[in-house]
């Protein structure tokens, strides 16, 4: 496997804190309103910017990662206010509003199934299982938008090896937390809950596959999947299951939420693939948020082909979408 080491990025290089306004983009936006007079800067200054509000803790002692991209990191404000987390509402802005009171402590993750030493892990244990790494990954949503996120965590294989999966463990099934009381909008989600996902064992054990506990140098915000989530950068975002409570090693391919919802549109593999369109839109291009134009070419396996293409040798990726 060829892994190019990218220059070390410090956290301080990374995050433009607070409110982000891309002036070039907002000028593009004017194109829409051709013929209308400008509102005027004085007017613009009257409106106060939106405020981000969630409890988060700084994570200490992270190292960089050779897997990190050097692409421009997406402003944190974008990543924390634009979320697909249907348990908290289906509008992208809903989770940031509705997940604020979500209780993520205490938190236990059960790791079980086809393994020699099944056990439960507390969040404190998970945070100390391995040195935390910052990994700056591209994240491509099936809806044709993308972001670049500095995740914090370590390879999923670390926790997997601790429970010693046996030879029957062909797949890994993941389950998200679900509580109707804390997630009162669940009934509108239109998907079966709890949210379930799955990976083939070799995909799960691949070093790129991250068990994420933080982003932007802090613990995960609730709306981004606190306190612990998966990050599989070469697959569409919905594969990266949030707020994990159960990890189960299984023999057969496990059911996955979006595949249950609409098998015609969402397959088990869901690898990022510009050549296989979603039935309702092209996957050839993406819009890099918070930009306006959907003109960034989508890369095979989201740009991680060098690392992961060999996992799918001989597979028809049009069939196994």
């Amino acid at each position, binding site marked *: 496997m060829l892994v190019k080491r990218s220059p070390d990025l410090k956290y301080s290089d990374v995050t433009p804190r607070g409110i982000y306004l891309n002036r070039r983009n907002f000028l593009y936006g004017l194109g829409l*309103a051709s013929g209308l007079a400008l509102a005027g800067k004085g007017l613009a200054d009257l409106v106060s910017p939106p405020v981000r509000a969630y409890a988060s803790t700084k994570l200490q002692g992270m190292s960089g990662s050779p897997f990190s991209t050097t692409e421009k990191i997406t402003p944190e404000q974008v990543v924390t206010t634009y979320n697909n987390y*249907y348990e908290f509402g289906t509008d992208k802005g809903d989770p940031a509003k509705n997940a604020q009171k979500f209780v993520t402590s205490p938190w236990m993750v059960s790791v079980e199934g086809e393994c020699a030493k099944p056990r439960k892990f507390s969040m404190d244990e998970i945070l100390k299982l391995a040195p935390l790494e910052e990994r700056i990954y591209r994240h491509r949503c099936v809806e044709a938008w993308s972001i670049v996120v500095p995740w914090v965590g370590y390879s999923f294989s670390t926790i997997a090896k601790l429970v010693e999966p046996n030879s029957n463990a062909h797949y890994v099934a993941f389950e998200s937390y679900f509580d109707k009381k804390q997630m009162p909008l669940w009934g509108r989600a239109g998907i079966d809950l709890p949210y379930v996902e799955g990976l083939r064992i070799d995909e799960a054990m691949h070093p790129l596959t991250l068990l994420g506990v933080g982003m932007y140098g802090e613990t995960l915000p609730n709306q981004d999947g606190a306190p612990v989530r998966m990050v599989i950068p070469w697959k569409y975002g919905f594969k990266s299951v949030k707020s994990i409570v159960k990890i189960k090693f299984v023999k057969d391919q496990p059911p996955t939420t979006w595949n249950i919802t609409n098998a015609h549109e969402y397959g088990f593999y869901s690898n990022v693939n510009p050549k296989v369109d979603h039935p309702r839109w092209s996957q050839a291009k993406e819009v890099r948020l918070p930009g306006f134009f959907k003109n960034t070419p989508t890369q095979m396996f989201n740009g991680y082909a060098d690392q992961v293409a060999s996992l799918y040798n001989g597979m028809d990726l049009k069939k196994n979408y």
Partner: protein
Amino acid sequence: MNSILTSKWTKALVFLICLVPLGVLIWEAFNGGLGSNPTQFLEHATGDWTLRFVAITLAVTPLRKLLRQPQLIRFRRMLGLFAFFYGCCHLSVYLTFDQVFDLHGIYADVLKRRYITVGFTGFVLMIPLALTSTAGWIRRIGGKRWSMLHRLIYLTAVAGVIHFWWLVKSDIHLPVEYATVMAILLGWRVYEHYSKPARPARAATPARKEQTSVVPD
């Protein structure tokens, strides 16, 4: 009431009110209010307003009859043109930001993706209505035929709702709301059509004079 409805100032005021959604979008564009995915925000906002103005336009006739305010008809053309205007904005956002004028992509979308096909159809059907919205065209075509032609708005309403319904991933409560409103507005017309007294009796009623104005239902 009638004097308010017939005042030219009222018409000017309604015109300005109809521009408020556009004004708000421009305001938000200048203030980072379009959120993390500005193009999607603009697509959704302009799409919503297109559907809303189609519904408002379709509400004029039921309202003027139920409230017995025939003068409300003065606003219908303007409201319909605003539906077309927001439809143009919606299409422009899609062409400019979503497709970035990629002709092949647009062609493929319109032909292959049924929600785009039906949405595009709904928009195209508004074009002849906008073009023939002037008094001159009503005269040229003749009131009765003009009225027939402008029933295309019913198809636009249905197409718009289907377009929205087919594009959502799983949560259909918003499309259902729009579908309900359109169903009521169109259902009222069906009801009116079948509950009318027999035609000869109607033609003999002089009180229905406003019905024969140049802007039939």
